[in-house]
């Protein structure tokens, strides 16, 4: 089911958690809400669920306006960060809860519960209490419980936040595969970029209660909508330069741009560490002269610190280790730093 959020605002006291948010979540997609803490991503999820009522704006499921509907009428599945399993019920009773309160027959509940235990790979755990499960198992029980009544929309709040790194890695691949199997419209909240980009079809970036950009992982990486997104995703070197005759300039570095900026003025270029290449001579890309001041190997890459000529601010480059060792550069070497790609924002 498509979810349409139109001009939604919500504040807690004086703190505006959501400020005029517009976003559409296409039917059957897996969408991540990504943002720093306090950006409003969890509030947005809870507005979709009906756990919070927006002060302004509307929420549509398909063509149906659900802004004022109670939680129980929305047919959603919600997975809480800390699972919120019912501790006095077994795994099977937890999973069957949504069917039990809908007055399904015992036989049908048992059948559906078995199906989900199968789907979630929880074989043999049906009679355990939540306290007897590991974190990853609890999370899958929570997911099974949310999916049992066949919700139109599945909502997950930091679903892997409370798990350790290994389990988190496994579970998110598994969530992706699961979504490919069942295709329920899914929205999940995360502050972990890797998680968002690995799992989601589309990522919505939130900041200060506003949507900064919505797009596929590729779009967000390659074409960030603004400086916040660029800075938030992956981090980058930040250079203050000025605009002159259709290009951005900083010392001897000249970056052409296609944006509709004014003819002159200052502008900021964001260059990702991995988009800086070091060589002995220019290779056609925009470049600047610099000196290597530090180089450290971190696994398969070398983190190099370079000082552009005529500037005190260092820049950081990430060079594949093989390239670095074949180039023969050392600390102190003069280099030509080419910029493969940069984003310029005024």
């Amino acid at each position, binding site marked *: 089911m498509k979810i349409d959020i139109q001009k939604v605002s919500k504040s807690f006291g004086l703190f505006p958690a959501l400020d005029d948010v517009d976003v559409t979540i296409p039917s059957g997609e897996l969408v991540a809400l990504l943002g720093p803490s306090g950006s409003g991503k969890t509030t947005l999820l809870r507005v979709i*669920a009906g*756990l919070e009522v927006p002060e302004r704006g509307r929420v549509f499921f398909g063509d149906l306006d659900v802004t004022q509907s*109670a*939680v*129980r009428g929305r*047919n*959603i*599945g*919600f997975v*809480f960060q*800390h*699972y*919120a*399993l*019912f*501790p*006095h019920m077994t795994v099977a009773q937890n999973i069957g*809860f*949504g069917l*039990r*309160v*809908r007055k399904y027959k015992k036989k049908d509940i048992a059948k559906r519960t078995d199906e989900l235990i199968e789907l979630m*790979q929880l074989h043999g755990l049906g009679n355990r*209490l*939540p*306290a007897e*499960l*590991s*974190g*990853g*198992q*609890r999370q*899958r029980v929570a997911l099974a*419980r*949310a999916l049992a*009544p066949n919700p139109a929309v599945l909502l997950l709040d930091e679903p892997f936040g*409370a*798990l*350790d790194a*290994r*389990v988190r890695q*496994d*579970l998110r691949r*598994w969530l992706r595969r699961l979504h490919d199997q069942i295709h329920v419209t899914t929205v999940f909240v995360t502050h972990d970029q890797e998680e968002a980009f690995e799992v989601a079809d589309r990522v919505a970036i939130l900041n200060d209660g506003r949507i900064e950009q919505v797009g596929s992982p590729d779009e967000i990486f390659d074409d960030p909508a603004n400086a916040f997104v660029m800075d938030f995703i992956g981090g980058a070197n930040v250079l203050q330069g000025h605009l002159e005759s259709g290009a951005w300039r900083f010392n001897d570095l000249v970056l052409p741009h296609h944006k509709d900026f004014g003819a002159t003025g200052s502008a900021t270029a964001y260059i990702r560490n991995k988009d800086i290449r070091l060589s002995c001579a220019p290779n056609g890309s925009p470049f600047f002269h610099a000196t290597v001041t530090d180089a450290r190997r971190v696994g398969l890459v070398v983190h190099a610190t370079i000082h552009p000529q005529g500037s005190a601010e260092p820049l950081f480059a990430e060079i594949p280790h093989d390239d670095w060792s074949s180039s023969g550069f050392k600390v102190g070497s003069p280099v030509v730093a080419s910029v493969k790609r940069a984003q310029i924002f005024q």
Partner: protein
Amino acid sequence: MTQKRSVSESKASRVFLTAIALVFLGVVLIIPLALVFHTAFRDGLEGYLGALADPDTLSAIRVTCIAVAIAVPCNILFGFAAAWSITKFEFRGKRLIVSLIDVPFAVSPVISGMIFVLLFGADSFLGPWLSDHGIRIIFALPGIVIATTFVTFPFVARELIPVMQMQGAEQELAALTLGASPWQMFRLVTLPSVKWGLFYGSILCAARAVGEFGAVSVVSGHIRGETNTLPLHVEVLYNEYHFSCAFAVATLLILIAVLTLGAKATAELMERRTRPQRELPLKEAKP
């Protein structure tokens, strides 16, 4: 084992400390208890049973039972409502309510009794109206019930508030997102998750209601066979030098205390078994 010993006291001081504890327990608890039973059975089993079967004793048991049977359900209801509103909602004056719940603990029971005499007694402003309508509260059963309820009302709320606070609202919200009605949420999720806390609070409340002396003493008027509760009856018998009868009735109160302790231990054990999951360490698991 060796590691444990290296961080604990020397053997001599352990024996010494344990001995102090045992002697103290013996002097203030075990010897007095033994004496109660010894005195109770001084006139033999027949004397003991005779004391219990006395019409005045039976009447005291009846009055106590009625007081408990009304006070405990009232306080369960009140305690639940108070704990619910305090833990699930934010509102002004919440702190004040939390403090007010403790008033019966803070005020001497005798004062509590006096308050009700001042409120409902013959000389109070409600007094004339009550006597015009033939309602007797002070020196009658209603007074005893009201005083008992007042003195015991913090128990259930005090037990439930921390339990509900620890659990938070997530499980209940989860129930709502799964399609439960508010009543289903309460019956299937809220109530089971606090049931041992509720049970324990009720047991403490009942034990206190049975044993309440001060407040009830003020409002009851000590009318034998009518408004005497068990503790009041013990006092009357004692003051009249019927020692073995007084102690025989006292053994009933001790019995109730022992049952309370047993129920408390059970409740704590059961609660530990279903403690909220997030407190347990997360184990590594393959999904």
